[in-house]
Every structure is written in C-alpha cells, then in structure tokens.
C-alpha cells in the first residue's frame, strides 16, 4: 500500500517541480511551512492582543472593533491569524502524512516522529483556545462542548460544565485564564517544535523565500476576499443550534454529538497511541533492512580528517583519539543515530578507486553497500563494448536509473548519491570508452537522507571536501537532479549532454 502511495506522492511532487522548481516545491518543505504559518499566527496574534479586551463583556466588542473599525489592518490581521492557523493544520497534517508515506519514521527518525505527536495536541489546543476568546456563538458552542467533553474525564468531573451554565456564572477571572492559556499553549508548542527538530543537524525551519512570499500573498488575498467574521455574541440562555464551524480545527466536535465524549477520547487516544508505536510496529521493507546497517570505521584506513564527521546529516559520527596512530584522530559511529545513508563513505579520502589494493576498503564503510561493491559495479558497467558512452551515477531514492541503461548509457545506482566519492567520477571520466559522467539523485531540497545531493553538489563545485578533481575536464561531468517521476527530463538531459560532448570532441 505504501509503495503505491509513494508513487502517487512522487508523481504529484514531479508536477509541482514543473510549476515551482525543486527549490520552491512546497511538498519538500511542509515542516518549514508549518513553522512559517506558526510565526504568521504569532505576529498577527501579538497585534490583535494589543487591542483585545480580556474581559467577558468586552471581548466580543473589542474583536468587532478590530474587525470593523480597523478593517484595513486589524481586520486583515484577524483573518490572517485565523487563516495562518488553519494553513498550519494543513501543512502539518500533510507533513506527517508525507513522512509516513516515505517511511521516514523509524530508527533514528523515531525521535522526531514521536516528539511530533504531542505537537498535534498542542496545535489543536492552541487553535481551539483561540476561538473561545471571541466569545461569540461559535465560542459558546466550543466552550460548552469542550467542558462537557473534558468533564467526562473523572479527574475533572461535571463541575467544569457548570462554568457555562448561565451568563452570570462566567467571570472575568475565568476569561483571563483562557487568555493566559491561549498564550501559554502556543509557547509550549514552540518549545515542542524546537525539541522536534533538535536532533536534526541543519534542520530547515524556514521555507524558501519565494515560497514564503507566495504563501503570505495568498493568505493576505484570502483575508481580503473572505474576512474572518464573528457569529452573534454568546448567550448561554440559548443553545447555538447552527454553528459556522472551522472544520480544520474543530472537526472533532460533531463527533461528540454523534459518538459521545467517551468514544471520542478513545478514538483520539487510539490515534495518538498508534502514531507513537508506529516506528516499532510498521516494518521496513526487506530491501531497506538489508541496506540499513550502520557505518563501520576501519581504523587502518582512517586518518582522522573529520570530513565524515562534518558531513553526517544525523550527527552520528564523533571524533576520538586514534586507537593506535599517534597524534591522529579517528571517527566513531553511533549506530543508534546512523541511517546508513553512506554520505560518510562518499566523504572519505581513502574511498578512491585509484588505490592498488585487492579489496577496496575505506576509512568508513557501509556494510550494506561496501565501497568494493561500488568499484565492482562500476567496473562491470565500464566493461561493455560501448564506445563513448554517457556514464550515469544515480541514487535508489531518486529516479530508478537502471531502466535507463541502454547502448551508449551505462548506469550505477547507489543507496544515496552522497555516497559517491568524487574520485569515482574522476576515475570514470578518464576512461576511454566514456564520453562524460552524469550524476543524478533526489533534488537537494528533497534528498531522502537530507544532505546527500547538496553535499555532492558542493564537493563538485569545490565548496566541500573532498573536491572533484579530474584531469578529464569538468565539462565532462554534469549534475542533473531528478525525482522518481522525472524520467523524461533526465533522458532529455542525458541526450543534451551527449550532444554537447560530441560537439566539443568534434
């Protein structure tokens, strides 16, 4: 099931790549968009709070003043506050669904996955609390329903709902508590978001600038076209029979009417528990498990350069004094943090095919895909009778390049393109039967192992060690990133590259 969902998602992302380009593709930065929406809601919320009257009698009137009298700013701010919050629900939900579909919730990623679960509760609690403050019909409906819902829990009891029995039962003090909660819960949410990304090296919490501008413009346009409005003021002597529900935040409330509070607690508790245990109960595919063996350091080949330490996107590598080489250090891998991406192998200066050894072993090796296997697969691909072929290195997570193998096109696919040491590109580019080397993989904004494509690009451009040095000439090397459903574009890029190479050689 996941495989077909993955295929569908990748197709959709490919369509977005055409419109937005990979760097602005919103699917690649849903988490960062969630952050952006949070900050939008925060900034607009601070503005609204300046004019908000935190009393039970003054709250509704103050919100109306903000909306009607100051429609050009306060009204837009109010709408933006509401819509940015709603947009956050959508981006966060899609973010969660996408990480699940891509299988990015197990092993080292389990921390981020599990720490994200309470954030869902906090996000909804923050949104629901905000609706109370308007103290209109919707707020009344939510207040009564929530107090009945929470009151079902023995620890709270029926006394909670008595707060909303009559208009006179409510006090300004209680309302001040609601205001406090609407500030405190988002602060806890922010703290949780910080913890959520804490273990991710160079975590991306800001979307691409163009995407921010586009999202903000679209939300402002929505605020102008459909300004947020209040229902009639709350009046506890009448039940709110029809309510303009926010189905993004308040979708659980109709369930309270149909199922009752106990089953709804059961349902939400079950979903929460299911999400928490998912990393342990949803197994990885056999092919993934076979590769998913943590990196191993070979002290004999490790010179302590620390390039792998700098490149590891999961901070799984630390440097310690070398076990037997004086004045040198060596890498150590924490298997609990290692995702077996192999980016460390690609950074190792000893991972070069030019070495004259029986079995090629680098300072840091992936047991699931050792360097010697890469050498053998490269040698096999080179062994064909083709002349002047384009040699393509690709990655298993991006486009499946094995299907591109054809006369004149030689291919080798690695678990991650970041695993490819630049010296292999140099080695292949120098071969007489190779006209050029094409390197492909996931788009840098959407590398499955986060930094494989970006680091490769930087190694090739000389910004990151090990640099690509080739006597064959850098014009014989080309990078073209391609998602799983961008075969046509990659084939066209290969053909165009071939034509350029032929033109140069002619």
């Amino acid at each position, binding site marked *: 099931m996941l495989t077909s969902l993955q295929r569908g998602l990748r197709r959709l992302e490919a*369509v*977005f790549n*055409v*419109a*937005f*380009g990979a760097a602005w593709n*919103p699917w690649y930065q849903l988490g960062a968009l969630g952050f952006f929406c949070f900050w939008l809601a925060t900034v607009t919320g601070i503005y609204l709070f300046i004019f908000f009257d935190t009393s039970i009698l003054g709250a509704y009137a103050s919100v109306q003043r903000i909306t009607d009298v100051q429609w050009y700013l306060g009204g837009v701010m109010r709408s933006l506050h*509401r*819509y940015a919050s*709603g*947009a956050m629900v*959508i981006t966060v939900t899609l973010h969660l669904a996408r990480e699940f579909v891509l299988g990015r919730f197990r092993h080292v990623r389990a921390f981020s996955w599990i720490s994200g679960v309470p954030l869902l509760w906090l996000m909804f609690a923050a949104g629901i609390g905000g609706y109370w403050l308007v103290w209109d019909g919707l707020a009344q*409906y939510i207040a009564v329903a929530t107090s*009945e819902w929470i*009151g079902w829990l023995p620890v709270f*009891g*029926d*006394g909670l*709902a*008595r707060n909303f*029995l*009559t*208009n006179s039962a409510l006090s300004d003090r209680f309302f001040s508590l609601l205001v406090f909660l609407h500030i405190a819960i988002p602060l806890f949410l922010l703290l949780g978001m910080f913890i959520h990304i804490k273990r991710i090296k160079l975590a991306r919490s800001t979307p691409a600038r163009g995407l921010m501008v*586009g*999202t903000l*413009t*679209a*939300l402002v*346009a*929505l605020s102008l*076209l*459909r300004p*947020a*409005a209040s229902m009639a003021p709350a*009046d*506890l*002597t*009448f*039940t*709110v*029979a*029809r*309510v*303009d*529900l*926010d*189905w*993004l935040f308040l979708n659980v*409330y*109709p369930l309270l*009417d149909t199922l009752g509070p106990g089953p709804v607690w059961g349902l939400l508790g079950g979903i929460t528990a299911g999400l928490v245990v998912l990393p342990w109960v949803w197994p990885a595919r056999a092919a993934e498990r076979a590769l998913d063996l943590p990196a191993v350091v070979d002290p004999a080949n490790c010179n302590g350069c620390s390039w792998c330490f700098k490149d590891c996107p999961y901070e799984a590598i630390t440097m310690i004094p070398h076990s037997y080489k004086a004045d040198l250090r060596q890498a150590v891998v924490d298997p609990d943090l290692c995702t077996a991406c192999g980016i460390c192998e690609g950074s190792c200066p000893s991972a070069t095919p030019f070495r004259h050894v029986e079995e090629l072993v680098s300072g840091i090796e992936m047991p699931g895909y050792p360097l010697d296997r890469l050498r053998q697969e490269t040698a096999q691909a080179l062994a064909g009778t083709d002349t002047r072929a384009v040699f393509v290195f690709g990655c298993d997570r991006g486009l499946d390049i094995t299907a591109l193998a054809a006369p004149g096109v030689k291919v080798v696919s690695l678990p991650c393109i970041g695993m490819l040491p630049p010296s292999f590109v140099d080695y292949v580019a120098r071969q007489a039967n190779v006209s050029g080397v094409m390197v492909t993989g996931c788009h840098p904004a959407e590398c499955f192992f986060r930094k494989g494509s970006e680091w490769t690009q930087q190694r090739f451009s000389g910004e990151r060690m090990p640099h690509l040095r080739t006597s064959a000439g850098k014009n014989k090397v080309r990078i073209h990133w391609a998602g799983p459903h961008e075969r046509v574009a990659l084939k066209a890029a290969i053909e165009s590259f071939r034509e350029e190479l032929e033109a140069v050689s002619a």
Partner: protein
Amino acid sequence: MTAVWARYLGQAAAYAAFVGTVGLLAPGPTYQHLAPDLATIKLSLRHAGELVADCHERTAAELTALPPNMRAPKVCPRERSPLQLELRLDEERVYSETLPPRGLRRDGRVSVYRRLSVPAGDVRVAVKLKDDVRADGFQFERTGTVTLTPAEVLVIDFDEQAGGFVFRTATQAARLAAPAG
C-alpha cells in the same frame, strides 16, 4: 521546457487550491448542532448530602481507652449521603441516578451536569432530590410547566439557600434584566 507563464499559472493554481481549502474549511460549512425544533434542558447541581450518621458523645470508658491527647468528647462521622436525583418530563422519567459523594472519605460535594434535548413548547418538569439516607422519600422536589422556544435553555439548578431547585430560562433572565417598574 515549460513556458514561464505556464509555470506562474501552475503556481497560482496551487496557491489558490491551498488557500481555497483554508477559506472553505476555516469558516466552513455550517454545522447543525441542534435540530431547529428542539430546546435544551440542563440539569446541574453542586451539593453535599447529609451526614450518614449523627455525632455521638463518647462514654467515659471510650475516653479512657484513648491516649490523653485524643480524648475528644464528641465524634462526628465525615461520610455523607449519596444523592438520588430524578427528572421527569411530562410524567416520563428521563433521568434517575444515585450519585456517591466524592473524595476518599466520601465526604465531598457531588457535581452533576446533564444536558437533554427536548421538543420546544410546553413541558411539565418534575425534579426530585434525596440527600439523606436516614430519611424517607425525597427531601427536595419541584414541579412546574415551562414554555421553551426553539434552542432556549432551561437550567435546573439547585440553590440550598433559595430553598431547593431553581428553574432558569431566557424569559426569566430577560425579566430579571429588565428595569424595575
């Protein structure tokens, strides 16, 4: 190569779909929480039942058996009676429950809150409360006919100082809010 205008058009469509979803669902389709011809009755009280037994004077023998610092002449039990609450609408019993006192020593107040939806119009309400296990029958009772408009709320509360059950409706609230005379 896709034309630039086509790319911008694609982006605009994606943004429109995104904020369109937000705009459609945030102030979303109206939800009918209560049918148009129904009203609401909220039965709610917070009350402590009577003590299950009287205080009693300790005998001289009982006092002697105690350490000197614990010889209080009078002992009062803390446990309170459970509340037996019953609500009838148009002579039909719609709610009846015996509610134990709260707390480890069963000495706390009981809070009750029940919400019912009833057809709007005239309804004969009879509510009874028994709060003393040592007495027979119900100690508090109130009956009356209330006219409820659609969505109107009848709150049946308990105010011991006012002598028992209190019926509150919007009409009553409006009357109270109106200037005297």
